[in-house]
């Protein structure tokens, strides 16, 4: 009973962290608009951009998810099938975009597509839509098609890691004898048949999960849309731009109506998608036996030329915007002579904090403090939530397990504006002093990262053989001893990856829409980047300073991922 209560407290705390702000936000918006959330959905078309935003949100999210699969699956296949030197570094490089702050990603991408940039010099002008892209645009009759293509490519770049992380482990741990046996059958002779009747059933759940998560992240895209397709609107972008005025009685009620309707529609769509993904992942864990990835890699050997070229291209694609970002930090425009010079002036100013409320060392200290706090909180909460779901599954309470599972992923489905409003109202009502609490940013960071910790730990918990626990009981171990001596060592690799992922997400989390953002002693690296980027850039060093800060952030994140890769096991599939 004591243990059950002990486990219940963190789970209740986590559910409250999600539900309390939501409750406050909905209550306030219902009060301001005088309509319930479902009525508000029906009024979305009253906003001048409402209908267009809904259509574009769905269209770009589906296209982004499809394109990410098309480009990501071959990479996952090559990575999973063959023996690669320094695979940890390749994986870290391919995962890096996923934890890159979106404003930094957007800048890197803009450097790639700008006039004189890499794609432009190849005749692909996505920004001004001239030449090939202009012809394509008039042929298909879609306005701003260059911008839309740039956005889709950026979403692919951002989400490629999801496809690789979901699918590659499954490919690399499937016993080769299964495929060998299938090849002996008449249906297994042709490559197409093997893909259709062997690989698709084997990989279906991982591929569909990757599709759903890519859909979710593209659906809620905001900064990339704003920078890369400035004339297009997603629901999240619309709510983020207008949302500051939401929830104020008697003031711009149309905005409250938009946020209430938009967030409800978005929440319903994404919850449905998350429920599907959760179900597929559960199926996946129980399907088939797995082998160690080294075994299969040894079995299939080294990659051919095509695979090498593919992985090289993917790595270049993943790193190019980030490398360009580093260049942008030392390539300074000279306004007086219309030319560029190379200099570390921006780095010098970034470290001194000349243009910002905090210097890089100060912001880095804050970032690391918050990241460490986030690691502790999200790993603790994530562990207990995963444990709860697993315990319910063991007790055959499947529906309840599914319910808690979906609820645990709710932060991924909620609009940032909605949560921001809820957190603000909630703290104001309950405990206003909390606003001046230095550790406050840890809460929204942990809310965002806990679902990923759950996703990492749950499959691992499902795979632990219950015989180990039984053996512990026979040896007379207490519940605590069984946890420390058996479960924890078995979960160590996943816990290390979860810890690194939590830290990386926290480091990159901007969080402006989540809380009343304070500056000064609280500034983190991404906040500093945003602060500098939002200034008028008459002075030539403004953007290079932002890029220098972003480079420090990227280096920290990359380091964390390389460390995590050393501990990662590749069983099953999942993030």
């Amino acid at each position, binding site marked *: 009973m004591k243990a059950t209560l002990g486990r219940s407290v963190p*789970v209740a705390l986590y559910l409250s962290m999600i539900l309390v702000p939501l409750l406050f936000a909905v209550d306030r918006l219902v009060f301001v608009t005088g309509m319930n959330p479902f009525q508000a959905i029906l009024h979305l078309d009253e906003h001048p951009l409402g209908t267009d935003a809904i259509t574009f949100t769905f269209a770009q999210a589906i296209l982004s998810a499809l394109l990410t699969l098309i480009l990501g699956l071959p990479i996952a296949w090559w990575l999973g099938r063959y023996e690669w030197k320094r695979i940890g570094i390749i994986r870290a490089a391919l995962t890096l975009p996923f934890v890159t702050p979106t404003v930094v990603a957007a800048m890197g991408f803009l450097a790639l597509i700008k006039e004189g940039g890499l794609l432009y010099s190849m005749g692909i002008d996505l*920004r001004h839509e001239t030449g090939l892209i202009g012809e394509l645009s008039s042929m298909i009759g879609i306005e701003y098609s260059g911008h839309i293509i740039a956005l889709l490519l950026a979403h692919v770049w951002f989400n490629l890691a999801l496809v690789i992380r979901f699918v590659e482990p499954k490919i690399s741990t499937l016993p080769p004898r299964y495929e060998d046996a299938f090849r002996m059958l008449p249906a297994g002779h042709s490559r197409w048949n093997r893909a259709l009747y062997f690989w698709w059933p084997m990989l279906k759940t991982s591929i569909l999960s990757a599709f759903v998560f890519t859909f979710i992240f593209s659906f809620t895209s905001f900064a990339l849309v704003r920078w890369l397709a400035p004339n297009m609107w997603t629901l999240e972008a619309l709510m983020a731009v207008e949302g500051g005025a939401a929830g104020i009685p008697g003031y711009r009620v149309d905005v409250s109506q938009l946020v209430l309707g938009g967030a409800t529609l978005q929440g319903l769509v994404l919850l449905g998608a998350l429920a599907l993904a959760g179900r597929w992942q559960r199926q996946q864990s129980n399907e088939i036996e797995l082998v160690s990835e080294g075994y299969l890699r040894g079995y299939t050997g080294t990659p051919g030329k095509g695979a090498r070229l593919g992985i090289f291209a993917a790595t270049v694609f993943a790193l190019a915007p980030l490398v360009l970002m580093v260049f942008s930090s030392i390539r300074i425009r000279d306004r007086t002579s219309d030319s560029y010079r190379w200099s570390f002036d921006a780095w010098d100013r970034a470290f001194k904090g000349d243009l910002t409320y905090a210097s890089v060392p100060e912001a880095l200290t804050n970032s690391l403090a918050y990241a460490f706090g986030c690691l502790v909180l999200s790993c603790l909460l994530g562990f207990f939530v995963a444990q709860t779901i697993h315990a319910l599954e063991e007790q055959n309470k499947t529906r309840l397990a599914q319910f808690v599972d979906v609820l645990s992923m709710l932060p991924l489905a909620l609009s940032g504006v909605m949560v921001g409003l809820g957190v*603000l109202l909630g703290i104001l009502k309950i405990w206003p002093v909390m606003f001046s609490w230095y550790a406050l940013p840890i809460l929204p960071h942990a809310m965002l990262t806990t679902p990923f910790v759950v996703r990492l730990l749950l499959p691992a918990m499902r795979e632990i053989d219950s015989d180990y626990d039984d053996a512990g009981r026979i040896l007379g171990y207490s519940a605590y001893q069984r946890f420390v001596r058996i479960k924890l060592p078995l979960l160590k690799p996943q816990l290390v990856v979860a810890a690194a992922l939590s830290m990386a997400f926290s480091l990159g989390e901007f969080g402006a829409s989540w809380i009343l953002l*304070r500056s000064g002693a609280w500034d983190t690296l991404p906040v500093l980047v945003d602060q500098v980027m939002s*200034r008028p850039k008459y002075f030539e060093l403004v953007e290079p300073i932002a890029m220098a800060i972003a480079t420090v952030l990227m280096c920290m994140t990359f380091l964390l991922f390389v460390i995590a890769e050393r501990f990662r096991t590749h069983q099953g599939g999942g993030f």
Partner: protein
Amino acid sequence: MIRCSLILSVLLFAPLSGCLSQYTIADECVIRTSADDKTLTIVTYDIIALSDEVLQEFTNSTGYQIEMIRTDDAGGILEQLLLTKEAPQADLALGLDNTYLQTALENCLLAPHSASLPNINPQALAPYSGDMAVPFDHGYVCLNVDTQALEENNMTVPTTLEELTGEQWKGKTAFPSPTTSSPGRAFMTATIDYFERQNEMNAMEWWEDMAENDAIFTTGWSEAYEIHYSGGYGVWEEGHIGDAWLTVSYCHSPGVEAFFGGNSTISQAIDIDYASFHQVEYAAKVNGGGSASAVDAFIAFLLSDQINSNMPENNYMYSVLEGQDLPETDGYRHHSPVPSLPSEISTERIDEEMEDWLMDWRQATRAL
């Protein structure tokens, strides 16, 4: 276990139920105060004049620590004040302009200060001169045009707003939205006055014509100026498109361009009668905020000669101190015309009609 979790969640929610649905819309202005502490919390957008060094100087000389709450722009400051009206989080609001000030006053969001002030330029005091807000910088919002693009296309600088609805300007103008940008809001306000004096068409008809003439509408000044405007520093920035030869900025923006560009700029501010807006930005004590003495000390610091006279270089706005002007260095002053007849709409009228204007503007342009 899940039952335990749900019960605990309910227990956590229970005390909160009393907190919900108890909002009041407006009440009489009662000036409230909170206890003083040694931290001054400022709600502001990113005022670039306030660097770490400047803030540290204030802390060293007064002993007050500073904490910032950042919003996107002047509108964001008003919205934060409205949202947190019942439990104010800031002591000082920095950056509300004269298109938002009256709304803040009407909603009892501000309180009188008691800082001792230096001589302030009467122009900066023209929109408001009471003790609830102190101007700290000002400037004129007007149209900026790319003279090089006009020359290349054999066009001349427009002398009326009506010209911009012509075929040759199709798709060549970019406007920040008045619903999400303060320069955008200021310019839209100016168009109301401009067309009321023309007696031929009303402002919203002009905006409708502009939308039909493929005018580009952006959410903020940055998008219009950096991404779309071909005559500014945006040409050096990642993501520049440069499809607009005319945009809304400050009349002294070409001056700032010249100042940082070695006295060279292709951008020119257009002085059309009543089509520019005199924008004044204010520092104001928040009603219900604490640290009254720190607020007064900061206002005095902000208006000190040492800080305020450097506004043109550090904040790209005019100083409010009497006798101060833009510097002559590198053509800053030369490229910054002062409009002869800016629009004359009172702050009271702005407060009364702004919501309607914004609704009409959105109807007319079908933009955000």
